[in-house]
């Protein structure tokens, strides 16, 4: 009897879920495609290998941090300190190479370590003492920036060949950071869909109480994830420093946290937790990358770019909603 009242309902996350969501997202995907078509029509340089490489390169770090951020947000947490974590690890790596003559490899490891520690610090505060994630990470956003600028006032630069390869090297014609980003994305997807903790991410996000009653580690998992996003931010900082061949303490990674959050939400992750897919996140990141690149190609003036970006965000959010609505059942549940 009840079986009949449940239209297929193949909408649970997981193999099947991601498939459905591919369609759910498609509204946004279509938006992206239209945008690409438009830019291609505007400038014949847009769809060139070189330019695509650009977009990929400038989206790489965003994707690297957006993946763990998405996992956090789905769990109902968030890390707003990533902007400063990027700055901190980049500067630490830089000054170790320049001031302390560390080998670039060692310096990079140190940078990653710093990032991870910063992340874990957030995690302990947030998931164990149950402080508000937003306020805590807004705090550490300032704290880490302060430390960064305390460590070095003006930018260390000139990091040598190793870093150059890391930041601007090509492997099989694809920039190294892009390879790394793809790796991170793959891992993220495997984790979310393939492993038990991945399922628990949703459980915690939807109903922590219920997850706890079912024996899910409702505190350890977020803690670990904060460590991971710290690591990712550290990686991001290192890659930025490598790419820029310098690490300005005052500006490296500034307002990056908002970019990450935008990409994640744009990708259809619900800030309230419980909803989101890796595919969506990828889509959100690419969307932003294409938008910025295309507008520069078209020589749009700065204020118009701001307007266009803003409008694009709103429209994209609308498309995402549209995607959501296509789920028949959801429409019923969402009273209307």
């Amino acid at each position, binding site marked *: 009897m009840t079986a009949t009242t449940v239209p297929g309902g193949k909408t649970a996350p997981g193999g099947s879920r991601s498939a459905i969501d591919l369609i759910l997202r498609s509204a946004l995907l279509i938006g992206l495609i239209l945008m690409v078509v438009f830019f291609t029509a505007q400038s014949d*340089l847009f769809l060139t290998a*070189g330019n695509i490489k650009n977009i990929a390169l400038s989206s790489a770090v965003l994707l690297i941090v957006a993946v763990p951020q998405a996992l956090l947000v789905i769990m109902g947490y968030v890390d707003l300190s990533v902007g400063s974590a990027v700055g901190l690890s980049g500067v630490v790596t830089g000054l170790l190479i320049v001031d302390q003559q560390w080998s670039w490899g060692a310096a990079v490891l140190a940078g990653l370590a710093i990032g991870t520690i910063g992340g874990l610090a957030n995690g302990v505060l947030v998931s164990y003492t149950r402080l508000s994630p937003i306020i805590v990470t807004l705090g550490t956003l300032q704290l880490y920036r302060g430390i960064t600028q305390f460590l070095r006032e003006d930018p260390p630069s000139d990091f040598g060949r190793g870093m*150059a390869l890391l930041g601007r090297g*090509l492997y099989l014609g694809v920039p190294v950071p892009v390879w790394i980003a793809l790796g991170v994305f793959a891992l993220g997807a495997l984790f979310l869909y393939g492993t038990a903790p991945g399922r628990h991410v949703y459980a915690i996000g939807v109903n922590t109480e219920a997850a706890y009653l079912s024996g899910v580690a409702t505190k350890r998992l977020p803690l670990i994830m904060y460590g991971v996003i710290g690591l990712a931010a550290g990686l991001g900082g290192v890659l930025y420093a490598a790419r*820029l061949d310098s690490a*300005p303490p*005052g500006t490296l990674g500034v307002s990056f946290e908002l970019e990450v959050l935008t990409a994640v939400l744009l990708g259809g992750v619900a800030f309230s937790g419980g909803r989101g897919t890796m595919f969506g996140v990828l889509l959100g990141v690419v969307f932003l990358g294409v938008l910025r690149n295309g507008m520069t*190609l078209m*020589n749009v003036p700065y204020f118009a770019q*701001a307007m266009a970006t803003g409008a694009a965000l709103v429209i994209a959010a609308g498309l995402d909603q549209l995607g959501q609505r296509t789920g028949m059942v959801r429409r019923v549940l969402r009273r209307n």
Partner: protein
Amino acid sequence: GGVQEDTGAAGGSGESCQRSTEKVIGFDYPLTSLSVYGDLKRFAEKRAGERGYQVKYTADDQDLQKQIQNVQTWVTQKIPAIVSYPLEPASMEPLASQARSQCTVFVSYASPLKNQDAAVLFSGLESGKALGESAMKWIKDRGKPVKVLVLNNRDLAVGAQRDDGLKSVFPAGDADVEIVSTQKAGTRTDGEQITRTVLQAHPDLNMVLGYNDDVALGARQAFLNAGKKADDPNVFIGGQDGSKEGLTAVSEDGIYRVSVAVRIRDIGFAVTDVAADLLESKPNTGVNVPPVAIDAEHAELKDYMSDYS
């Protein structure tokens, strides 16, 4: 290993190059929120119009990553000539060399690069010095002790340069000068807020040196709000940029005594000329526009102001 660097053939030099015949110049100016930006563009375009060029712009909103991305886009786009104001010179080097290796003209703006065909310079260091010197002169002439608030912003390369310049000549160990506070200020709002508070701590505060006109004007407002007279002879407020408002304030011959200016018109023209010359393979090593401390008595004040619409 399989990883090689992505900077093409390193350091292509000007002569060996076949320049593009397309008459387009990209002007990458990251500080779009500065009030000088508009007029700068106007002059660059004026000259471009005369020489039949088109000028393109980026929108970096003061963000290093975005600036690099945008210039990278231009490089791939093979824009014939790029004039860039690097927020972080070191970060621009790889791009510059990549650009030049494909025979794109690369002109550096404000701070020199290793990889550049030419530069349009107005030294931040000099600018800071000029402000410091005119401040010292005012102190000497007046011969009374002063209490100073320094509003700097070392997050920006230019801000750091100007700060270094200022430090190098001010206060130069002068016993009469007491720097009671040094604070970071990015915007006019910051300038007003900080100055207001410092005025609380030191009601006899009578000198504010700002790293640009916006923050200095904020400071001036704080003095006015605190009920100080607009022409109080015992107060010295100085800014840098020579922005329209800055110079207007100076021309009122009040407490806003100096704005260290570079001739916006000259720079705007230079942006186009240097790039265009190089594209047309005319020799041009660039220009170095000297910063001048403009005060109410300065002969050229009117000319400087006339640059603005």
